[in-house]
């Protein structure tokens, strides 16, 4: 309701009184303006108040939420779809077909709070009854000397846990533990290595690898992002078991101190089986030897296939002939001087048992008969520099890149200087030491048509590429020569019908610690490739101090020791890998003359 600015009654009254009616209008206008101002001011105040309140509310809410979040304990989101839970802190290890080699089990550790213990003395006695390895007196002392926390056992079996429960003392407590389990026992022990506990707490303990693949790939196995994905090795459980069985039988029959075998896929570099004897149980890994006089090879923990750096003997000869053929110096049928003994400076190079295969021998026969003198002449044609470069390209100057923690430490022993006499001795595998794994990788290069592929313990997907170290023709010719070693040379016991084994024997005298060589201690090696017409696999068998006593005289050459073991391995293992024996062409029906 609007009040008029000039109300008629007051105007008339003012006129009568002789006042100026405009004064009234002005007065009214002023009042109206004041009222309007008052109204807009109160509205603005109200708006400011609302704004203020909403700011306070908003910041208060944020502040309260922050305070709440800071003050409360963290909680897992509850409405999460299951699927990605990490069950185990360490990924499983499987073989190439998915069979488990290492897995985890949940067990418990036992610890005690002596302060809350009801009967420390009785508890100590009962615990010692359950665990015979614990000393009751020592336990009792630890329970009563005022400490508030005591570890008793790292890992319990469910039965032991039940027995401890039955003691019923409130001071005995259990902490969950994850335990590494190797269900196959000693199988592939050197590959797997072993684990132990790292940092230990009441609620959990770290499991860390101590050797083998477990240590070499520790980061991958403990990566939470890949905990659900098992690590697939290139090993084949069945093949590995067979190789170990045959190797063990061979080792015991030949009275050898140790043995090693490597079976490798030449095309991909995958190691199908890797055995070293004597072995151990990774579930209960023995302690390393502490005796300073003991050789590392005496411990079952020693991996002969990878760590055992030996002089590999005549198995090296094929590298000299292959290089000479590659350089075009000789062909397979070229005759070389093999007149033994050979005099070089003050050194005399002799053949096995002082034989003489000379005066001239074809390159193929140098390999088949394993002539030191013939190889020495070929090596001299090549020369030291080219020989070194070739052996380097075959990986003999570096540790092998296999995924084992022991591998980088196994550095080949290479002569510091390389005069011509070293060229000669190296050509037949003396004076330079390498591990059987090096030999396997180098033979795989020959078997793979001259392409060097990195050996690996992990299953490879897709094609593999490598560096070409020799031409395909040279590689093929070399395999043919190796085949001759088996058909008519030193490895005649290595023939396996249908599998065309090709290989080279090597017998090296063991070096004495004091210098010089033992007369009756040898390392026998047989490096083989099969089947020769289409090489797919490489098998290296090494025996440490073997002796064949089946006949009247003791034999220590590889042809009598390592070769039969290798041939039995091939006979047993090749069918397991699905390799069909190559059937001999059936004999044509011959007409026999007969007369009545």
């Amino acid at each position: 309701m609007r009040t008029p600015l000039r109300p008629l009654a007051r105007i008339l009254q003012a006129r009568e009184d002789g006042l100026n009616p405009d004064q009234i209008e002005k007065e009214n206008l002023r009042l109206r303006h004041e009222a309007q101002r008052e109204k807009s001011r109160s509205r603005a105040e109200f708006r400011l108040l609302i704004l203020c309140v909403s700011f306070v509310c908003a910041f208060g809410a944020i502040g309260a939420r922050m305070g709440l979040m800071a003050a409360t304990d963290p909680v897992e989101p509850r409405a999460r779809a299951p699927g990605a839970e990490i069950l185990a802190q360490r990924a499983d290890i499987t073989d190439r077909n998915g069979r488990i080699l290492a897995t985890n089990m949940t067990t418990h550790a036992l610890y005690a709070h002596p302060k809350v213990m009801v009967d420390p003395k009785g508890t100590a006695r009962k615990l010692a009854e359950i665990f015979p390895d614990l000393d009751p007196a020592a336990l009792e002392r630890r329970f009563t000397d005022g400490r508030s926390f005591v570890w008793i056992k790292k890992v319990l079996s469910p039965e032991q846990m039940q027995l401890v429960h039955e003691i019923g003392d409130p001071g005995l407590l259990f902490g969950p533990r994850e335990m590494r389990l190797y269900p196959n026992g000693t199988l592939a022990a050197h590959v797997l290595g072993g684990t132990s506990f790292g940092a230990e707490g009441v609620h959990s303990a770290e499991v860390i690898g101590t050797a083998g693949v477990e240590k070499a790939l520790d980061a991958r196995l403990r990566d939470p992002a890949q905990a659900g994905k098992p690590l697939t090795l290139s090993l084949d459980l069945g093949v590995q078991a067979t190789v170990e069985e045959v190797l063990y039988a061979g080792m015991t029959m030949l009275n050898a101190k140790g043995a090693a075998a490597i079976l490798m896929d030449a095309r991909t570099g995958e190691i199908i089986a890797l055995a070293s004897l004597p072995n151990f149980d990774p579930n209960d890994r023995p302690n390393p030897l502490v005796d300073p006089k003991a050789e590392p090879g005496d411990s079952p923990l020693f991996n002969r296939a990878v760590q055992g750096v030996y002089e590999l003997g005549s198995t090296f000869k094929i590298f000299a002939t292959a290089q000479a053929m590659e350089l075009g110096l000789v062909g397979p049928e070229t005759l070389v001087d093999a007149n033994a003994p050979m005099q070089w400076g003050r050194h005399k190079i002799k053949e096995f048992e002082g034989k003489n295969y000379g005066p001239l021998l074809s390159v193929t026969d140098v390999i088949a008969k394993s002539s030191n003198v013939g190889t020495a002449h070929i090596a001299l044609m090549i020369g030291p520099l080219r020989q070194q470069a070739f052996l380097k390209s075959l990986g003999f100057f570096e540790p092998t890149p296999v995924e084992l923690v022991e591998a980088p430490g196994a550095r080949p022993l290479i002569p510091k200087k390389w005069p011509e006499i070293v060229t000669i001795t190296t050509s037949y595998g003396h004076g330079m030491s390498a591990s059987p794994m090096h030999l396997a990788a180098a033979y795989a290069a020959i078997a793979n048509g001259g392409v060097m592929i990195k050996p690996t313990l992990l299953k490879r997907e897709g094609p593999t590429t490598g560096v070409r170290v020799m031409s395909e023709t040279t590689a093929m010719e070399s395999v043919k020569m190796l085949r001759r070693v088996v058909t008519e040379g030193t490895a005649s016991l290595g023939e396996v019908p249908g599998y065309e084994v090709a290989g080279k024997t090597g017998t090296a005298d063991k070096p004495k610690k004091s210098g010089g060589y033992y007369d009756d201690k040898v390392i026998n090696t047989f490096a083989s490739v099969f089947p020769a017409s289409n090489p797919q696999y490489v098998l290296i068998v090494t025996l440490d101090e073997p002796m064949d006593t089946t006949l009247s005289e003791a034999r220590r050459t590889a042809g009598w020791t390592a070769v039969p073991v290798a041939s039995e391995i091939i006979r047993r293992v090749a069918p397991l890998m699905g390799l069909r024996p190559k059937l001999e062409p059936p004999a044509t029906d011959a007409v026999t003359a007969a007369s009545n």
Partner: protein
Amino acid sequence: MRPVLYVLSFLALIALGFWAYRENYATQSALKEVESLQRQIVGLREALSVQRAEWAYLNRPDRLRDLATVNFDRLGLLPMEPSQFGSAAQVAYPRQSLPAIDFPVDIQGETPSEEGL
């Protein structure tokens, strides 16, 4: 009109409150169920991994080899040999069963009918 509106909105408020209350409890119980299911899943997975380990342990090659030796009389299992490979040519074709001769009918041809000519 206005009182009716008030009553209606008040009723709607009560209904919404009731609905929110029920939803709240339904969510809580669903979450509890999820939790118990997840606990079950974890337990089952643990059991599964134990059983896998046991399967691997019972199927370890050493044990299978010993079992094959012990049960040789019944199973007659020997290690695989190269001679056990066969070729496809060695597999005999299944004998084809000839149809039984029960109703010899020889059709030699029919005489063309008159209309066709």
